[in-house]
């Protein structure tokens, strides 16, 4: 059973455009992470959010954790080809296990 649904599943945009990826669940999480995975590699952590309503910025990336800690969003401003990859959200429920989302594949064309 997939507890974390991401949307959209695929996103293909031109360089310079803005985009938002959503990660939704009916479950409450203690913390939520976002990872990016490039072809042929394993996922790499981008950010961890732990407080409901928390907003974190990483250069052109803005991450938000929902007030109820059930959902999260990732907004990219002025996307670049280097942002291309598979974006995965992952929730943690006070265990050492992460529940990964369904993934959003982003392609940014120059």
């Amino acid at each position, binding site marked *: 059973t*997939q507890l974390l649904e*991401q949307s959209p599943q695929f996103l293909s945009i031109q360089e310079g455009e803005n985009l938002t990826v959503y990660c939704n669940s009916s479950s409450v999480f203690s*913390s939520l*992470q976002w990872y990016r995975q490039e072809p*042929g*590699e*394993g*996922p*790499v*952590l981008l950010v*961890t959010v732990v407080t409901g309503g928390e907003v974190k910025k990483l250069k052109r990336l803005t991450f938000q954790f929902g007030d109820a800690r059930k959902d999260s969003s990732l907004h990219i401003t002025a996307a670049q080809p280097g942002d291309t990859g*598979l974006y*995965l959200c992952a929730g*943690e429920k006070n265990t*050492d*296990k*992460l*529940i*990964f*989302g*369904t*993934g959003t*594949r982003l392609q940014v064309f120059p």
Partner: protein
Amino acid sequence: GAGVSQSPSNKVTEKGKDVELRCDPISGHTALYWYRQRLGQGLEFLIYFQGNSAPDKSGLPSDRFSAERTGESVSTLTIQRTQQEDSAVYLCASSLYGTVTQYFGPGTRLTVL
């Protein structure tokens, strides 16, 4: 320092054969995870080791799948009598005790013909 390493990077096998995939975690990381990733999809949890505790095998899809870990080091994922639906990338990750950040290896791409 060295990251998580996995071997082989690619494995092609025939249906019905057994395969072993290896993972070397980051030194000092007590937790080790195995995931399966089908083409273009998210990660499917398989098994989790934490120190000397009994492993969490709740994600193993069938009794053809098993994994072992030697102490807090190397782990081997074994798939017996492989089927075509086992074709996927198998990812290993490790983490420090009490933290949730996982560090992933590059994966082993398994193709079952």
